[in-house]
């Protein structure tokens, strides 16, 4: 088992190093075969781990200590691979999607010059993500956390000649860094309270004795709430929750397979993983959990509204990801930690499927992403349409599709938690469900139905993707179809039967009553309606009708404009201010320059010594030393 774990985690690293170091010695095809080979081995190992974990009934636990990282006194952090059921679920998902993206990219990125760089980044990303989910202590988790952030940065900016890509890459990294700062503070607080960074050990210490409250503005706040908030803001950055979500839509500048892997299935779910991992901590909080609930519900709602007016196919899916991540946070907040992770799992399949399907469309449309120029694609791209339809149905929550089970679990838990949080979050999530149906139907309708709005030359080139792209799509479609059906009994099982005892996993009953069924039915109706309405796209009609609401949505709730005015510009001004008035006209004018000025006025002799004649300075130095020796010889010696 330890071998499998090592293979699973280090396979991608080897693939990365291989692509990075030997790209000159090997042809492009050979290189990709090698990378695919290592990734394949890792994926097999990951799948084996997953099978064993499912069979073990919650008793699964493997730890491979690698080496000491930092150890000073009672501060210690180690490199170790540690896998419990939660980790293994993540490892499996990450490796499967990553492997399929590796395959898919072979065809999708065929025209690229330096493909080795791309594959190196992909491998590094996968490795960092696996280090994140198999971390035993918070410091290694942070290593993975930052590692995936950097790879995301590199891959968003993969086409580095594009100014917009560079901008988006930097934005992604910086917004993430805001969250990371809070995560580091959370880590520091965790260590402060428990004297350890080991997650399991620290959590049990926090549970065994309630720590002294922190005093916030004169009022004591439970320490766990403070930690919970810190970790929540950290998670919000990576998982693009409302407030720190602005980077995710821009991140669509990266290649589409990257969006599927990083910005849908894996990296953005790291925040959900973090909170699920720390679920014993959140279980004991009220304030922090309430915040998680509302952050999730509001994100699900806001992102859903913005997705309604997007015309870029990738941006629709990006906002949809944002919204679905909101669902997961909602699930975490109401205590359905396993439900949230279940949604993470099914979402990984169907959202990767949607992205890769969109990639197939974009690829065949010669990189056109604007849905207003698409339409009628179901005829030339029947397979792709079928795949996209499966993904959409799963996203909308059509019964028996995977999203149905996982979303249902979260909705049911939110409904059940109304005593604690009121019905607000549940209502918001129901509205979001309808929004999801609407924008998904709109996207599918605009892209595949109606008449083609592409020009003649382009229309002639539209084609179905080849085998290397279709195979991953087919596998993901299978996942989107069956992962809910097969998984829900296990994933939603309460107690320790599946998840072990490291995280909190309540029993989430799956029953179909009017409360559960009504939203689903409404959703499906809206989906079909949107599909029909948006099969025809008339630019003029809509442009005229643009009102306050729509402008608000088109401008993405004005988050970017607000941040620009609130943070970006002031920081720039402050920098200029400090530089010009602080350093140059402040410190320098009073300090060194001012001194010379005085010296010039005061004495000609002194001025001469400031003219930059080196011997003068050296003479002064030597004299200083001599003076010192003389003083010691004749002064200090006697005095002592």
């Amino acid at each position, binding site marked *: 088992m330890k071998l499998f774990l090592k293979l699973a985690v280090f396979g991608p690293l080897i693939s990365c190093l291989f692509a990075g170091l030997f790209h000159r010695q090997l042809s492009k095809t050979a290189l990709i075969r090698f990378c695919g080979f290592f990734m394949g081995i890792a994926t097999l190992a990951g799948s084996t781990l997953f099978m064993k974990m499912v069979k073990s009934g919650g008793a699964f636990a493997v730890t491979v200590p690698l080496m*000491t990282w930092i150890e000073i006194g009672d501060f210690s952090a180690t490199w170790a691979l540690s896998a419990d059921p939660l980790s293994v679920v993540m490892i499996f998902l990450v490796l499967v999607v990553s492997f399929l993206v590796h395959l898919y990219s072979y065809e999708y990125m065929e025209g690229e010059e330096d493909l080795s760089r791309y594959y190196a980044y992909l491998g590094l990303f996968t490795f960092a993500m696996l280090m994140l989910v198999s971390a035993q202590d918070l410091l290694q988790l942070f290593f993975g956390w930052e590692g995936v952030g950097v790879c995301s940065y590199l891959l968003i900016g993969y086409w580095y000649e594009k100014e917009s890509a560079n901008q988006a890459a930097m934005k992604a990294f910086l917004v993430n860094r805001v969250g990371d700062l809070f995560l580091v503070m959370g880590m520091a607080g965790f260590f402060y309270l428990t004297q350890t960074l080991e997650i399991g050990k620290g959590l049990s210490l926090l549970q065994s004795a309630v720590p002294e409250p922190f005093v916030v503005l004169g009022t004591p706040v439970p320490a766990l709430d403070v930690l919970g908030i810190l970790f929540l803001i950290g998670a919000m950055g990576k998982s693009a929750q409302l407030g720190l979500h602005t980077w995710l839509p821009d991140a669509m500048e990266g290649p589409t397979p990257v969006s599927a892997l990083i910005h849908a299935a894996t990296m953005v779910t790291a925040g959900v993983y973090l909170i699920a991992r720390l679920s014993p901590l959140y279980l004991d909080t009220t304030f922090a959990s309430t915040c998680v609930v509302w952050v999730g519900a509001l994100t699900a709602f806001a992102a859903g509204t913005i997705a309604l007016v997007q015309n870029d196919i990738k941006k629709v899916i990006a906002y949809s990801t944002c919204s679905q991540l909101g669902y997961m946070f909602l699930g975490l907040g109401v205590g359905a930690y396993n439900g949230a992770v279940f949604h993470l799992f099914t979402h990984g399949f169907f959202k990767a499927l949607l992205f890769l399907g969109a990639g197939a469309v974009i690829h065949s449309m010669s990189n056109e992403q604007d849905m207003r120029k698409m339409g009628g694609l179901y005829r030339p791209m029947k397979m792709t349409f079928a795949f996209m339809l499966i993904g959409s149905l799963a996203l909308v929550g059509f019964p028996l599709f995977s999203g149905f089970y996982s979303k249902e679990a979260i909705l049911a838990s939110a409904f059940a938690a109304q005593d604690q949080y009121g019905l607000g979050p549940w209502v918001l999530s129901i509205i979001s469900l309808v929004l999801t149906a609407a924008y998904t139907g709109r996207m599918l309708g605009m892209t595949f139905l109606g008449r083609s709005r592409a020009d003649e030359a382009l229309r002639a080139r539209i084609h179905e993707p080849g085998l290397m792209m279709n195979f991953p799509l087919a596998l993901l479609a299978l996942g989107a179809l069956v992962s809910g059906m097969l998984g829900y009994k296990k994933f939603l099982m309460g107690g320790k039967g599946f998840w072990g005892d490291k995280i909190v996993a309540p029993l989430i009953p799956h029953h179909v009553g009017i409360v559960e069924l009504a939203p689903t039915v409404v959703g499906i109706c809206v989906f079909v309606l949107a599909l029909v309405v948006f099969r025809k796209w008339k630019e003029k009609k809509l442009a005229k009708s643009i009102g306050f609401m729509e402008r608000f949505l088109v401008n993405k709730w004005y988050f970017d404009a607000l941040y620009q005015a609130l943070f970006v510009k002031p920081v720039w001004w402050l920098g200029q201010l400090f530089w010009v008035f602080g350093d140059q006209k402040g410190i320098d004018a009073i300090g060194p320059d001012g001194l010379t000025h005085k010296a010039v006025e005061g004495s000609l002799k002194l001025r001469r010594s400031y003219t930059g004649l080196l011997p003068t300075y050296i003479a002064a130095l030597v004299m200083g030393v001599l003076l010192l020796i003389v003083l010691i010889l004749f002064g200090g010696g006697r005095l002592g």
Partner: protein
Amino acid sequence: MDSFPFLSFLIFLPLIGGLFVSLLSSEDENAFYVASFVSFVSFILSVYLVIKFDPLGGYQFQEIYEWSKMMDPQYAVGIDGIALPLIVLTTFLTFLSILLGWGQEIQQRRSYLVAFLVLEGALIGVFSARDLFLFYIFFEMILIPMFLIVGVWGGAQRVYASYKLFLYTFLGSLLMLAAMILIYTQAGQSHLDILGQSDFNPEITIFLWVAFFIAFAVKLPVWPFHTWLPDAHVQAPTAGSVMLAGILLKVGGYGMIRLLLPLFPEASLDLTWLVFGVSIVGVVYTSMVALVQDDMKKLVAYSSVAHMAFVTAGFFTFSTIGIQGGLFQMISHGLISGALFICVGVLYARVGTRSLAAYGGVANKLPFFSAMMMIFVLAATGLPGTAGFVGEVLVLISLFKVSGVLAFLLGTSLFLGAAYALWLYRRVIFGKLGEESEKLSPLNNVEKGVLASLALCVVGLGVWPQPLMNVMAPSIEPVTQSLHAALEKQKDPQLAMIDLAPSEEKVVLAASRTPELTTQEGDAHAG
């Protein structure tokens, strides 16, 4: 231990080597090879010291000679786990700096190389001095070659820069000299071992502390004593910047941990607020200034000031973790900023400008260089897995114990640092190839080798910092112990919150903390 005076040999080898180089005839091309050889032997010798060094053995390779029967100050040298890594860093970076001159057109090459060798000797001397006045002599001696490197081989405004460098440093040194003489008149001794155990008149302690602090704050540099640094860096030749950022700044930090904290523990405890204040202002202020620079070297120089603030903040937490973090930050910053200056130098040597606006799309022409620079830029942002992370996270975690809000404010460098570092990278490496970039010729093997070896160190220390930690940790104990003793003496309830001996403290959950502390803690989250 061997009776052979290895340490003195290491100090004087570069000095004698420098003398030898200066005796070569001026047309002699061998000057470069002699200097490289000398610095290489110094490096090997310092590695030998590492092998021979016993982390638990306190001061080693000690030598004491009397200058004269009449006076007490002696020639006393010896190194512990704090000095040794800095000495290795010195020999390593000097070797690389000298190598960088390979194939380059340098006026008066002989004197240039002499300056570097003398600088190396003086730096090793400072790190190994065990006598107050010997420390001072080497401390001053550093200034001469550095001053020459900036003033003679510098850019257009080298005179202004070198004068500024001189004025600042000399002011600090004068204060320190006065303080040293005062100490000597009080204690009648100048060996650091003895001084560490003596008490000074409390009335003058504050003056002494301030004098030493300013001297080291100028070197480090601590805001607001930093304005000489950007100018000196901009004017200095690449190798000079490497030495300046890589090692010279560390003399300030070293002075703090070697003299300031052990000699004046009580004053240090009293003035903690001051140091935290300037550290945090320094981080925020200089990071923002770095953000608006157009000159690449100025940008990196300002980033140095921001990174050095972690050193002071870490030291003044008075905890083992914090001091360890500060020391580690010194080593890692030495490698990272040295490497970044080399990167800037590589570009400057080809294109002839340091203006960010002139660059773009370098990745197209120099993929290897771009990959290396990526590593250094990310290390500068404190990415885990690189050396830059270890020091910063240790400082933040230890500072959190003192105050959450201070840790948060210092931590803003996580964000601001990433902003200027990635901005630099984006403007230079990414984007479309500009006209200027046509001049970019491939890197030569020396440049490649230097950058690769630095990258290896940066990543190596990031993944496996433990060997370095093991060397440093035992030598920190005496410092924390003296601070602990001072604290006991003081019994100041305000400072009771500072954790001095975490290894002894087995308290698992937070005990009662003072209200002020926790209020600040809350502010952090509100913000």
